[in-house]
Structure formats: structure tokens, C-alpha cells
């Protein structure tokens, strides 16, 4: 992409940012989001200087070693060639960082997608990303190509040398040609105990018949991370999208996902799991637009809430006039492990056509006494029964992750996390 093209996009984003302004709690989808810690903190953008020194063992917990992956590692938002592993790619596939200048043909390709339709910012923080991003990743899979190896965008926050709160703006652009297939993972992890702010934008374009599996795995760190993200997916005819969102740690997480069925006959599955403790807050705002008919969307979000954590599930399914045979499900379940935790749930529907099938449901509450009694009546102790039930609650989401290496790593992670949380809850009693 030429500097001129990028400048144009940034300038448009600046205008949008100025028009939109920072969101306030008067706006429905920011009602429960306390932005003050972000707006009142001076977050410094790191500069691309010498690469931060990290140990290989710091990355190890986040790698999917069982299977070779195409890996792009970012340290404090900047691409690290040293830790990345690009592998040999099928012909025509482009997977690269956004920080280094691309050759002409690739630049043109990127310009075609970056901050276009799916990237059109609807909130100020997405506009800020376009305005400020220094780095990120571009993944292009041409028509008919099936990318076998998963692509892993691994973002690691390290201790800032100046020890100042840090902000960076990861940008990921994914474009899949007709009948192309890819599997991508974006992991966030921190090695720093300092506050840091990640303002991320992901845009994905799926041409006819394409299939994308995408996982967002966030290990936010205790009491330190702020994550605001916008994801947009534009689906042409007969495409299949599967999204997994896993959130753990971080002080504040707000994820906005918009999926648009721009062609008929597509399916989108959005699954989410948050495991929150302490003062963590996680806000999920989903919009699925059934612009064209014969589309199927499934949302299944679960939150496990301890301490005084708060989770919000705010989901809108919009069925446009004429989008007949649209089929949608929205389901949110919140498991409350301590009396101070709160789950907000707002599945909403806007239907402008007949002949659709739309269902939604939400539950919020503690563990079921009847389930605990059932397990205990088989000889399991109360502690083991609780662990089994809470893990089972999470497993229902984890089991939907197709890629075994990702699923198994998360399963073992969630298992130990839950054991730790239940141990803390027990001590409080």
C-alpha cells in the first residue's frame, strides 16, 4: 500500500473519530463500560527501537506445539522477525506484517481491503486504530486455496523500558478468495504487571464459498490489561465462519463483533467463553446482520464469574427486509460463583421479514443444587463436584473448537484456572 493510500485512510478515520467522539455511558452499548481508567491514564505508544528481550519459555505457554503453525509474533505491538515463523506458503498466499513495506502487488491487495467496507469504523476506538496502527498482519488466501496450517498472530506485551502504561493498536486484515479456507488465531498475553491498553481491529472478507475459523484467545493478566476491539466479518454467498472468543484476565475487555451476511446461504457460529475473577469486566457486543436470506447464525456465549467480576452479553440479530429463511439462535449463560459477580444479558432481535426462525435465551445463576447433589450421590466430594460442574459449563464451549491443539491447550488452561478460582472462593467461605 502506498503511503498516500494509507494517509487517505487515516485522514478519513480522523474525520470519523472527530464526528463520533469518545463513547459515553449514555450510549446503550457503552452503558456498563467504565472508560475512565482509559481516558484518565496517559498511555504511551512504544517506539520501534531495539526489540524487547524475552525468553523462549515466556512464549511457550501460548504456542500450539503439537502442530506446526504459521506464526507472527508481535512484541508490544511490533512484529518480531526473530520469534516469528512464516513457513513455506502455498502459491499466492500472502501472510505478512503491516509494519514493513510490501512489494507493489501485495500493497495493492492490502489497499483493496484495509479499512474498506468491513473496516468502516462505527466506534471511536476503531477509528483510533485506523488512525494510529503501526503494525499488525495481513492474511490473503487466493481462490480455491486451503491453508492447512493454522495462522497464529501472537501479541505479547512486555514490560515497557520506561515503565509507563503502554498502548498499541493491532490491526489484522484477513481476505479469503472464493472457496479458500483458513484457520487463524489471535492470542494476547502479557509479561508485564503494568497497565496496558490494546485497541485492536480485525477485518475479514470471505468471498463465495470461503471458510474461516478464527479464535481470539485473551490472557489479559491480573489487574493490568484494557482491551477494546472491533471485529467485522463480511460474508459473501455460501461461506462458513466460526469464531471463538476466550477471555481471561484483564481489567476491562470490550469486544464488538459484527457479522454481515452479504450473500445468501452462509453460516456463522460465534462462541464465547470468559473466565473472570477479581474486578475483571468483560463486555461482548455482537451484531449479526442477516442482510441476505438463507443464512444461519448461532451465538453461544458463556461466562464464569467470580469475585466482583462483571460480564455483559449484548447481542443483536438484525434480519433485513427480504432476508427470508434466515435462521438465528442467541444463547448466553452466566455462572455466578460469588455473590458479588454480575452478569448482564441482552439478546435482541430486529426482524423485518416473515419466514424466519429466530430464537434467543439467557440464564444467570449459581451452580444447580440438583446437579451438585446428583454428583455427590455418586461419591464425589462437594469440592470435586463443583469443579466438575464448572468445568463442564466451560467445556460445552471449548468442545466446539475444531482444532485439537487449540482445544486441548485451552482445556488444560481452563481446568487449572477454575481449580484456582474455586480454591479462592472456598477460602472466602
Amino acid at each position, binding site marked *: 500500500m502506498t503511503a498516500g493510500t494509507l494517509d487517505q485512510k487515516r485522514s478519513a478515520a480522523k474525520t470519523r473519530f472527530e464526528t463520533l467522539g469518545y463513547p459515553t455511558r449514555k450510549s446503550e452499548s457503552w452503558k456498563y463500560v467504565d472508560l475512565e481508567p482509559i481516558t484518565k491514564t496517559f498511555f504511551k505508544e512504544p517506539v520501534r527501537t531495539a526489540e524487547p528481550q524475552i525468553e523462549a519459555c515466556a512464549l511457550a505457554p501460548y504456542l500450539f506445539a503439537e502442530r506446526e503453525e504459521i506464526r507472527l509474533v508481535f512484541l508490544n505491538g511490533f512484529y518480531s522477525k526473530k520469534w516469528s515463523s512464516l513457513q513455506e506458503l502455498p502459491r499466492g498466499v500472502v501472510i505478512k506484517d503491516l509494519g514493513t513495506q510490501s512489494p507493489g502487488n501485495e500493497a495493492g491487495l492490502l489497499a483493496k481491503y484495509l479499512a474498506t467496507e468491513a473496516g468502516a469504523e462505527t466506534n471511536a476506538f476503531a477509528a483510533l486504530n485506523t488512525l494510529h496502527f503501526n503494525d499488525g498482519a495481513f492474511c490473503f488466501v487466493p481462490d480455491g486455496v486451503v491453508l492447512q496450517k493454522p495462522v497464529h498472530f501472537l501479541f505479547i506485551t512486555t514490560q515497557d523500558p520506561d515503565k509507563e502504561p503502554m498502548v498499541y493498536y493491532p490491526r489484522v486484515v484477513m481476505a479469503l478468495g472464493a472457496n479458500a479456507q483458513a484457520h487463524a488465531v489471535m492470542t494476547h498475553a502479557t509479561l508485564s504487571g503494568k497497565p496496558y491498553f490494546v485497541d485492536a481491529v480485525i477485518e475479514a472478507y470471505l468471498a463465495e464459498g470461503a471458510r474461516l475459523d478464527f479464535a481470539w484467545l485473551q490472557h489479559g493478566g491480573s489487574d493490568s490489561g484494557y482491551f477494546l476491539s472491533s471485529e467485522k466479518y463480511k460474508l459473501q454467498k455460501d461461506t462458513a465462519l466460526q469464531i471463538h472468543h476466550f477471555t481471561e484476565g484483564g481489567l476491562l475487555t470490550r469486544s464488538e463483533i459484527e457479522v454481515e451476511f452479504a450473500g445468501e446461504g452462509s453460516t456463522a457460529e460465534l462462541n464465547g467463553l470468559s473466565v473472570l475473577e477479581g474486578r475483571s469486566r468483560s463486555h461482548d457486543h455482537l451484531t449479526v446482520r442477516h442482510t441476505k436470506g438463507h443464512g444461519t447464525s448461532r451465538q453461544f456465549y458463556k461466562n464464569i464469574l467470580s469475585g466482583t467480576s462483571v460480564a455483559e452479553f449484548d447481542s443483536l440479530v438484525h434480519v433485513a427486509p427480504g432476508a427470508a429463511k434466515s435462521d438465528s439462535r442467541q444463547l448466553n449463560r452466566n455462572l455466578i460463583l460469588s455473590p458479588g459477580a454480575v452478569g448482564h444479558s441482552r439478546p435482541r432481535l430486529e426482524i423485518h421479514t416473515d419466514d424466519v426462525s429466530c430464537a434467543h435465551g439467557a440464564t444467570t445463576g449459581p451452580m444447580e443444587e440438583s*446437579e451438585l447433589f446428583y454428583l*455427590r450421590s*455418586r*461419591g*464425589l466430594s462437594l469440592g470435586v*463436584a463443583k469443579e*466438575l460442574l464448572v*468445568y*463442564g459449563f466451560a467445556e460445552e464451549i471449548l468442545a466446539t473448537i475444531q482444532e485439537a491443539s487449540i482445544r486441548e491447550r485451552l482445556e488444560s488452561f481452563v481446568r487449572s484456572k477454575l481449580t484456582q478460582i474455586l480454591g479462592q472462593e472456598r477460602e472466602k467461605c
Partner: protein
Amino acid sequence: MTMLSIKDLHVEIGGKKILKGFGLEVKAGEVHAIMGPNGSGKSTLAKVLAGDSHYEVTQGQMLFEGKEIGSLEPETRALWGIFLAFQYPVEIPGVNNASFLRMAYNAKRKFLGKPEADPMEFDEILKEKLKVVKMSPDFSVRSVNHGFSGGEKKRNEIVQMAVLQPKLAILDETDSGLDIDALKIVAHGISQLKTPENAIVLITHYQRLLDYVTPDFVHVMADGKIVRSGKAALALELEKKGYEAISR
């Protein structure tokens, strides 16, 4: 040897008296059937024995192998050898059936001071137990009762009984909601699990289960206590005359 001895048991839930002076003696090797109309307290009895904390024992005693169990946690009673096959087994999505059964099996093994089974070993054990009620092996990869049909849930209870090999099994309306083929399978499973060392208490509405599992004793419950006891023939009499006539 007396396995279970219940004397003058009074039980309430939310201030409502359900059991009002219930008594029962069960010896090893015996099969007892407890019959009675809805609301007579049959299911309450089952849950109280298993340790459901919603119920309050206000009077009387429950001795298992001579020891009072009233204040024991449900898991302790299970480890001692009491098993309840639930009338309405709960669905637990996300919890794998085989893992759950292995955990329960190993909890028991540990309690008995025996070595625990690893997943491979348990797989073999489970395979055999599934045959008791003709469950297909794929059932072990499913979540506990999740999406099971009514009949599958009841069969799963019998599989658990087969795995845990309790001394005292209380089957709470395990026959209800089963079609005749499923009933035969379940009844056959129960019969296979009957030994001279264990005891079975069948709680049922109808005679039909007793056509396949012959009880040594039949008790009729009404208004929270046993009003008549007899041999297997009593169940047939009940079937003909109805509870009303028998209870009078």
C-alpha cells in the same frame, strides 16, 4: 444381617410433613418393593436416604449396617455403599459420561483402599457394564444424560449402579416412562446386579416391573408410612383392588 433399619422416621420439607413414622428393615440379599399412590412419600424416602439436604429429619433413625447415616454428607453415604437411581436424572452438559463414571468409580476405590483405574482400564470396565443394559459404547463419549431420551437416562442410572456396585440400591421409579422393551432391558439389568450380598429397594407405582424382578417383600405406603407389608402376591392384589382398598 440387617443392612438398613429405619425406625419411626419423620421428615419435613419447608415445614410440610411428608414422612410420618416410617419404618423398614432390609437385609442383605433381599429385594423390597415400595408401592403407593402419588404423594405418599416414596420419593422423599429415596432422597432422604441418599442425603438430599432439602429435607429435614425431625424424628426417628436411619441405620445403615448399624450406623446412623442421618447426619452424613451424600458422598459419604455413597462411599459406604448406598446408591440412589434417580427418578429424574439431571442433565449435565459438558461433563463427559465416562470421565464422570471413572471419577465416581475411583472415589469408591480410593475409599476402599484399592488402586484407582486409569482411563484405559476403566474403558474396559465400562464396556462390560454397558452391556448390562444394552447401551451402545458411543454413550460413554456423550455428556452426562445430556440430550438422552427418558429411557436412556434410566438405563444410565443402572449403568452407574453396575459400575459402583452398591450394597444398597434404591431405585426410584426406574420403570416409569419406559416402554415395554426398555422396561425388560432395565429389569434384566437389575436382576443381573442382584447378589446375596446386596439389597435392592424398588420404588414403583405399578406391578409391571415386579413381573420381571420378583421382590421378597412388598410394602404399601400411604400418607408417609407403610400401611401394609406382604410377599410378592401383595403387589398383584394391589393391581386388582387399587391402593384405596388395600390402604384401608
